């Protein structure tokens, strides 16, 4: 899951929980606020009443009676005086029910005792709470307000998260996902004011530079090493040639020299193979020739005929004469197919077959398949056959393990996709897909 989605979900979730909690406590809150308000009003009224009592005397209310009671028209409020026991002291505000003219009503009642003319009286002021006319609209209003507020903050959060996270996605996009190795251009820093991202970006850029450096150093080393080996190999080779030509050389010595020459030849071929690979990787070949594959294959077959005849292998060419590879290096493409066909012979059985098929695929790319009826490659070896110095089919005891490494680097240089399928004892098929369109 993407970080931004996770953050969004988390924020939405936490807001939802808050809202639910608030909705649950809302009635209680509203009631509490209403009570506070009622209490305040009751106290105000008590003060007023007591002020009147002090000013005009209690008789103003009692009018000679022993108690007094009065309520408003809709029984919303009432006020009452009554005598109380001498030793009772009360000053409370409570909810309770009163029976007025046959109606039982809920009141919030302020009860307070006071002394007047050496007698104890109880003052009660009541306010009806059963008609809580404010509660419902208040709750609804609060709810709507809350939802609007939450929606607004969520929107702001989303936008903000997106803005904050944006550098991270561009780091991922430019540094990790859409990047071919070796990293080509100078890596540009992603603009961000978030120090964590800046740190991440800097570290990644540093790592990429280091990897690139190491990669190029290794490449350079291979190139230099094989290059430097060429002169000593030439010297050895030429010395042996001169030695072999010496007068009075015994047969044994001559044979020994020839054996040494074979070893030097092996060294030479390994070194030139490595050099070839590093030259391809360093892009020292020009890709602007056009090659007719049919002609190329015929040429290779002519060159390699002696090997085909040796094993009595027949070769079939299913390829149209007007097919054309464009923008390639002819020598390299030759080398690529030479190596593949060479392997197809090397690992083939006596009287075997090789089939070369060239077709245009549905999406207009050119596809060449080289199939043999050879010994096949074990499944577990398939991922490694293109590595340098990897020799499968060790029983055959031939080759230096560089043939397919060369094939791979030439294919990569020409953006040719290469795939291999193999069945033990049945044969191997190499499939090459040329990215460019055929004519």
């Amino acid at each position, binding site marked *: 899951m993407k970080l931004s989605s996770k953050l969004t979900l988390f924020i939405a979730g936490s807001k939802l929980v808050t809202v639910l909690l608030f909705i649950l406590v809302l009635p209680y809150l509203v009631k509490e606020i209403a009570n506070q308000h009622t209490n305040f009003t009751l106290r105000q009224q008590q003060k007023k009443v007591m002020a009147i009592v002090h000013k005009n005397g209690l008789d103003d209310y009692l009018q000679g009676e022993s108690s007094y009671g009065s309520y408003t028209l809709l029984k919303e409020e009432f006020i009452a005086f009554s005598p109380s026991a001498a030793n009772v002291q009360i000053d409370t505000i409570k909810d309770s029910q009163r029976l007025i003219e046959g109606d039982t009503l809920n009141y919030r009642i302020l009860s307070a005792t006071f002394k007047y003319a050496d007698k104890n009286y109880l003052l009660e002021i009541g306010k009806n709470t059963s008609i809580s006319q404010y509660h419902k609209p208040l709750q609804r209003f609060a709810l709507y307000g809350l939802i609007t507020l939450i929606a607004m903050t969520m929107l702001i959060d989303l936008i903000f998260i997106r803005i904050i996270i944006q550098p991270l996605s561009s780091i991922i996009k430019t540094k990790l996902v859409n990047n071919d190795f070796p990293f080509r251009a100078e890596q540009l820093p992603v603009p961000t004011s978030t120090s964590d991202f800046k740190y991440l970006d800097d570290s990644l850029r540093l790592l990429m530079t280091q990897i690139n450096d190491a990669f190029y150093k290794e490449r350079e080393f291979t190139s230099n090493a094989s290059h430097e080996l060429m002169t000593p190999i030439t010297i050895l080779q*030429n010395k042996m040639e001169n030695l*072999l030509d010496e007068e009075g050389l015994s047969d044994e010595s001559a044979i020994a020299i020839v054996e040494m020459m074979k070893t030097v030849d092996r060294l030479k071929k390994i070194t030139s193979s490595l050099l070839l690979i590093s030259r391809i990787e360093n892009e020292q070949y020009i890709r602007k020739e056009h090659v007719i594959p049919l002609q190329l294959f015929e040429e290779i077959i002519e060159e390699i005929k*002696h090997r085909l005849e040796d094993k009595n292998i027949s070769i079939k060419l299913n390829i149209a004469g007007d097919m054309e590879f464009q923008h390639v290096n002819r020598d390299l493409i030759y080398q690529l197919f030479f190596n593949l066909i060479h392997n197809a012979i090397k690992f083939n059985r006596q009287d075997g077959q090789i089939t070369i098929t060239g077709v245009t695929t549905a999406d207009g790319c050119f596809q060449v398949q080289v199939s043999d009826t050879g010994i096949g490659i074990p499944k577990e070896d398939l991922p490694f056959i293109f590595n340098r110095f990897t020799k499968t089919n060790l029983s055959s005891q031939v080759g230096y393990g560089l043939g397919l490494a060369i094939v791979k680097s030439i294919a990569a240089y020409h953006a040719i996709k290469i795939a291999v399928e193999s069945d033990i004892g049945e044969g191997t098929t190499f499939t090459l897909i040329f990215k460019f369109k055929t004519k």
Partner: protein
Amino acid sequence: MKVLIVEDEKTLAYEMEEFLKKNFYHCDLAHSFDHGVQQLALNQYDFILIDLGLPDGDGLGILKNAKKNNPDAAYIIITARTNLKDRISGLDLGADDYLAKPFYLLELHSRMQAIARRKFNITESLIELGEFGVDIQKRIVSFKDEQIELSRKEFDLLSYLLLHKGRVLTRIQLSEHIWGTFVNDDYDSNYIDAHIKNIRRKLNAFAATDWLETVRGVGYRIKK
């Protein structure tokens, strides 16, 4: 013929000198750019072999320089850089051939012979071989007046042996000449035997070929 070898690797220069002397060339050696330029100013040469990777200058510079003084000489560039760009500029500057290290001295020699034939108009291309005649230019083998069909590779093999008449050529040397220094990861040298067998079979139908000798464990030779 006079040869100047411009090569900073002394051991290699000596080996080349030894080989060429045996083949009746006169050799001068130069181990640096300056030395090479100096030699070229003083002497006239028929062949100039130039290593491109000199410590004190680019061999291509020598080539440019030498062309003024020795315009008729044949130039062969020797280098470990088989860079296409180098090759093109070398040939543009008038080099006659280009030899990549590592090379066999035999190969160098046959290249020199080929250039000599072309450049100095040596037209003795018809060579007598027992009762056979071989025309290296026209690539024809004949018995009396009758032409004998040899495949391209078979002819290459025969003419290479003929060019180095009297010398034993190893299978590696022969296969490198025929199939090139093409990077190819195992020996083709065993196939030389098959070709020799074919050549013998085709020629024996006309006359004996005991001039073509097998040297056990080493290779083949055409007797002098």
